[in-house]
């Protein structure tokens, strides 16, 4: 039985890997052969190696009433999952699971692993209760499933990052009594299992997590005793040795909230927005790369891929959110189009390549 009759296997596969990700569920429901083809690791590998994988930025974004520009409102905005395709400029929405019909949790975390998009934790938008829930959206089937809750007590404002292939890492945050946590966890998406990791050296509330150069890095945050006084240190977890590195003091240039800290990839290094500027870490020193355009002075989210940064922000509280792309090599800013309905505040996001 051939994938496509008359075509040799590799040529047929060459056609299938060019299909847009939105058609994955269709391809998977044609027949057994096509279903197994699209699920095979080889499919994803070839899609990426032939540069047919699509870049997406999934984000937790506030829904703005059409027709109004601003998000100034008395009630809490309702957050939905938006998807932006930087290569085509296309914006779309992923329908939420029933549990999130009244909005995604506030301050939830979003990471991607393979074809899965994982939504972790957050506060219920109506009751403000902290939740350790895990919801996973699969792009191959366009379906949601619920994963195992994060173990341990309630945890919010934690660092979260994935190695994009198998594992989601969680560290720090705070519990219901606002005690900063130093504990860390890892979640294997395929087997739906959580494991405890060794504790971090420092308590880190509101720290930022990134995965770079094979290690999970927890950046900044603050301990229980000094609420809101962000530290400049960071520590890295190496999955190979299952241990945390020495704390690196003065990893950040200044004591600031590390929310906009992002890893640009192996070649580009890491970035951070601070004081109206976009900073880059070159070697051991932070350098100013560019001034942020006024329209995105308040940066809500920074995503990075392939030498480009996508920044979403607003000019002030309650204002419309706009997106800019920043090319790292040329240091040029380019404003991106966002249709009505996709101009709300962005809590968090993640870059995927599928």
């Amino acid at each position: 039985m051939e994938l496509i009759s008359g075509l040799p296997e590799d040529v047929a596969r060459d056609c299938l890997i060019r299909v847009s990700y939105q058609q994955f569920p269709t391809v998977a429901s044609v027949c057994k052969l096509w279903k197994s083809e699209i699920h095979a690791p080889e499919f994803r590998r070839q899609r990426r190696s032939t540069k047919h994988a699509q870049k997406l930025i999934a984000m937790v974004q506030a829904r703005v009433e059409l027709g109004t520009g601003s998000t100034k409102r008395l009630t809490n905005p309702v957050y939905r999952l938006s998807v932006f395709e930087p290569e085509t400029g296309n914006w779309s929405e992923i329908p939420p699971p029933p549990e999130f019909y009244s909005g995604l949790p506030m301050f939830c975390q979003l990471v991607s692993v393979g074809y899965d998009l994982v939504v972790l934790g957050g506060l219920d938008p109506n009751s403000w209760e902290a939740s350790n829930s895990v919801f996973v959206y699969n792009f191959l089937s366009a379906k949601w499933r619920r994963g195992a809750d994060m173990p341990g007590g309630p945890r919010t404002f934690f660092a979260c990052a994935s190695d994009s292939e198998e594992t989601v890492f969680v560290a720090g945050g705070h519990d219901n009594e606002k005690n900063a946590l130093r504990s860390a966890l890892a979640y294997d998406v395929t087997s739906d299992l959580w494991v405890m990791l060794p504790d971090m050296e420092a308590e880190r509330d509101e720290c930022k997590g990134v995965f770079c150069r094979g290690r999970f890095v927890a950046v900044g945050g603050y301990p229980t005793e000094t609420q809101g006084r962000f530290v400049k240190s960071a520590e890295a977890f190496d999955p190979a040795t299952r241990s945390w590195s020495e704390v690196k003091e003065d990893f950040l240039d200044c004591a600031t909230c590390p929310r906009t800290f992002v890893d640009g990839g192996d070649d580009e290094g890491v970035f951070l927005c601070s004081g109206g500027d976009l900073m880059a870490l070159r070697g051991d020193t932070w350098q100013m790369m560019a001034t942020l355009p006024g329209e995105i002075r308040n940066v809500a989210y920074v995503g990075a891929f392939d030498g480009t940064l996508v920044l979403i922000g607003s000019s002030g509280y309650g204002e419309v959110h706009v997106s800019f792309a920043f090319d790292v090599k040329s240091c040029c800013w380019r404003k991106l189009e966002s249709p009505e309905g996709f101009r709300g505040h962005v809590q968090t996001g993640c870059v995927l390549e599928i």
Partner: protein
Amino acid sequence: MSDAAMAVVKPEMKSYIWLQTVDGSIQQVEEEVAMFCPMICQEVLQTGMGSSKNYAISLPQRVNPAILGLILDYCRFHQVPGHSNKERKTFDEKFIRMDTKKLCELTSAADSLQLKPLVDLTSRALARIIEGKTPEEIRETFHLPDDLTEEEKLEPLRNITDDPRIRLLNRLYARKRKELKERKKLKDVEVEEEPKDERSVEDLLSFINGADGDMKGTRTNKNKKKNRRRKDHAKDLSSKNENDKDLNPLPSAYHNVYFDNALEASASKHSRMQNLPAISFSPKFEVIDGDVDDDLDPAMKEELDREVEDFARRLNSDWPERMQILSLGQDRRLVPPISMNSNGSTHLYTALAGNSISKVSGS
């Protein structure tokens, strides 16, 4: 080797390469066009073949004469260095306009001739064709078997949840939908016969209701009132089952009468369902019943009512336990899929699960 070399050296004379397709036919092709194909180019340079009829290059089996013609058209255009990118793109767009079968043959042939740009072009075209089709259409186009089970297929109503209650509910919905479709088809056929039916049914009507001479109009009003009452009972479900609207039953008196009786009979069941804690799926059934059941025959209706009641009973019995489990945050069940066209089943699940899930707190 010398022949080929000589052919190249005479610029005034057009040089030709001789090609033989698998069916045995031989043709000559302008040299610059044929050499655009890496496979042919390789043959000429390495073996010296192709310089005369007797030494024609044998093309791979996947290249038949018709397809070869197409490929050569492609090569003839693209080997000219003068064209702009835009011109090439325009040519390509027009070039690939052909039926899917031929497109597959072309892809295959181009691949065997190692003509990568054409393989890219045709693969992309095939991908676009796939993107524009439903699974059923794809199976038809590419002659693929329909061998996935209902569970494995990804229709919105089908789901992969463990919960048997959701599965039963969806099955009921699916069956109702099917019946509605069939009823609608029959109805479309019966439309002309309708007036005749009504008259004889008027007689039946008065017989059943004790011949108090009720006009059809009054009866209809009574039904409408009942309908509205039932709908008021239903919790706020913003989207109705689409089929409800489609159906728009013709107010045949016979059907209305039956509907009255059926409503009364199942009223008690419905009110019992109303008492379920924080679960509003029963009203949804009522809404469907109200609009649709006129058309179902009595036996079918009874069976469905029974199933609904059974479902409600089962749900009622272990739902409190379920809520308990959920609130402890230890339940790792799968959730049913989302249907983008907001039909009844999706909102139904909200009603079922919405209240409990939002209160989950980690422990």
